[in-house]
């Protein structure tokens, strides 16, 4: 048992570290390091532009999408090299956020299902960040139940005509392309009538409307499709096989191993270490210490769970299912941590404006953004189902709509 790199890994780490040291946008390092959930903007620069510039620089030197094949803009690296890169990239990895969906989900789906010429055309600019991609799955009628989606695709000559609405589309407002899951046959059970496409987000009939979130910010969008035409050669997979294609996309979320999950704990521990309460330092208060200790072991438990997965990668093995707990644990923890940080501030915790609030409103921003973390990318409840079914082998839910043609499934609760 050890935390040491193999000689090969050490060499790769040294090369990566040297390149990052010489090329990263250091002027933003401090701000990026201090960013936390709900607070990732840069004060004097457009983070989108900074992110794109950093991604392009990486791509030009062969450091973009490390695990992708070289011909598609990657480096052909092993999974462990990708993890080492993430560790070395550190706070600058925050700049990759806007590419997560494109690189983590759209790219792998294109790689598995697109025609060769499309892969060669579309993947390198996706890797280099020159083009940004989004994923158009969720709908008002299908969030956790994504196969309940209603956006229609109808064949018309060599094209498909799309009508419908998507929602919760991260980054649609700055995306150039998207992968789109549609219903092509409403007369068969829901999983069987789906088909996947990719499309140009500038196509005629595509309208993107930002959603104002509960936090006040707008990271997500509604996307409306009105008679949007997509050529058949942009279809991914067979007609009616969209569900299987989408599983490939979702499975690739697993590749997030090694990426740090935000728990809010380091921020809270730092805060409590210097905070004075009415009757003395917070860190010497029994109740505070107990809370901190309980969160500390969750944070360290997640950290070392991730280390175990990385070790499996390092040995060339498939990581076990342990990593599936990360999002579930971190999501509600960061919400609880933020709530407690405000509790410690007493009545003044209510003030959230950066000019007047404690720590420029860091924990207030965290609190307001936190509910989203427990919903996006799989709700807490879906994550528990996944653990129960795929890890523990418990039965799937009884699906009353399993064998019912999609157009016969009730659409209203009452």
């Amino acid at each position, binding site marked *: *048992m050890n935390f040491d790199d193999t000689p090969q890994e050490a060499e790769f780490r040294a090369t990566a570290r040297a390149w990052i040291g010489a090329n990263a946008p250091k002027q933003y390092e401090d701000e990026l390091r201090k960013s936390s959930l709900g607070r990732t903007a840069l004060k004097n620069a457009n983070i989108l532009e900074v992110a794109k510039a950093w991604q392009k620089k990486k791509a030009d030197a062969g450091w973009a999408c490390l695990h992708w094949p070289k011909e598609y803009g990657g480096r052909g690296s092993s999974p462990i090299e990708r993890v080492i890169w993430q560790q070395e990239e550190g706070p600058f990895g925050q700049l990759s956020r806007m590419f997560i969906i494109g690189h983590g989900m759209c790219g792998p789906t294109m790689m598995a299902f697109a025609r060769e010429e499309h892969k060669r055309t579309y993947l390198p600019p996706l890797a280099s960040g020159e083009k940004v991609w989004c994923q158009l799955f969720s709908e008002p009628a299908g969030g956790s139940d994504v196969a309940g989606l209603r956006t229609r695709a109808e064949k018309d000559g060599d094209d498909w005509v799309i009508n419908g609405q998507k929602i919760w589309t991260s980054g649609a407002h700055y995306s150039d392309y998207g992968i789109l899951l549609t219903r092509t046959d409403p007369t068969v059970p829901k999983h069987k009538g789906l088909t996947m496409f990719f499309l140009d987000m500038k196509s005629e009939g595509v309208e993107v409307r930002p959603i104002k979130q509960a936090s006040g910010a707008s990271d997500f969008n509604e996307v409306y499709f009105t008679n949007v035409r997509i050529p058949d050669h942009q279809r991914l997979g067979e007609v009616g096989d969209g569900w299987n294609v989408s599983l490939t996309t979702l499975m690739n979320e697993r590749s997030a191993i090694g990426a740090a999950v935000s728990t809010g704990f380091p921020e809270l521990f730092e805060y409590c270490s210097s905070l004075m309460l009415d009757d003395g330092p917070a860190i010497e208060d029994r109740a505070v210490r107990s809370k901190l200790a309980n969160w500390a072991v969750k944070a360290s438990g997640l950290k070392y769970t991730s280390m175990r997965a990385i*070790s499996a990668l390092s*040995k060339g093995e498939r990581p076990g299912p342990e990593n599936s707990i990360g999002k579930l644990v971190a999501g509600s923890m960061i919400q609880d941590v933020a709530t407690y940080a405000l509790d410690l501030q007493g009545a003044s915790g209510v003030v959230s404006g950066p000019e007047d609030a404690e720590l420029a409103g860091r924990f207030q921003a965290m609190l307001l953004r936190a509910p989203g973390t427990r919903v996006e990318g799989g709700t807490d*409840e879906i994550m528990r*189902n996944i653990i129960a079914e795929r890890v*523990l082998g418990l*039965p799937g839910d009884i699906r009353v709509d399993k064998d019912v043609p999609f157009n016969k499934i009730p659409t209203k609760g009452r």
Partner: protein
Amino acid sequence: MNFDFSDDQKQLRDQARKFLAEKCSPKAVRIVLDGKAPYDKELWKGLAEMGFLGVAIPEEFGGAGAGHLELCVIAEEMGRANAPVPFSSTVYLAAEALLIAGSDAQKKKWLPAISSGEAIGTLALFEGKGNPSAKNVTLAAANGVLNGVKKPVADGAIADFAVVAARTGSSGRDGDISLFLVGLKAGGVEVKSLTNLDPTRGQAEITFKDAKAEPLGAAGEGWSILTQVLDRAAVLCAFEQVGGSDRALEMGRDYALDRIAFGRQIGSFQAVKHMLADMYVSATLARSNSYYGAWALSTNAGELPEAAAAARISATQAFQHCAKNNIQVHGGMGFTWEFDCHMYYRRANAMALGLGSLTYWEDQLIDRMRKKNAA
């Protein structure tokens, strides 16, 4: 990076699991649970023959000379099997105290006897209510004899010797405490069994009246040695707790698959599935924290105090959580003496207190994290 046990260590774990499945079935555990024997003597003998008792004891003292990582994987299996033997008292506490502070003669006297299963040892620290603290130690040592009462002492009624914490000074500092080795079968020692949460591991009250004792380690070093012993034991116990958590989770999962209610497997209800998923989450966090503790223990790293406290808290929580929800999944049957669920519930809650309660370890963890940050 290789933050995992080696193939050899995993093989040893499998070997221990197989051995315990055969020799330590729930039926065997029940003999002790029902008070028909103070501990499982046959199993104890078998553990000695397998080389498990002395796995971390150097060969020159009669052990297998493997190491603490090997002991961790065996501990996990002991917890999984809910073994009714004085393993933790003898191996994690008494043997570790001897390894840290024993003279050559003391090691030669006791360690081979531990490895061979001839001697059972324990640590006598507590004196009634309260967590580990130098100021709670009042038992007096003077002129080579001890006077005072210790309780609870784990496995005290069956132990051959004890490492005893005694007061040798009155400055009000940790340096007032020294450790002693005492033969419990000798004169001046009175032992009374105490009914406790977990009958598969006994607790006792021991009264010392001019009991002969020899110093273990230097005078005044007792508290510092004890702190090290407790840290090591915290990691090793954490592995027992991880093993117990996994077993309780498995029992709950299996029952949820077998049991039909309302015309379906109860494991198909989300209320049950989600409860089991949460048990898996806490068991996984505990395992990962414990691995880190194992790494720190086996390398004697400066991180050990923090890692041990984290492993202790995480594994204690996980075992308590899994054991109580295992009963919940079983419903009414889980609350019968006949079903095994309560054995894990008892063990989980007894183990949560044995080295000091969660409150104590939470305090320790924060102190140690602050120390690290200040450094």
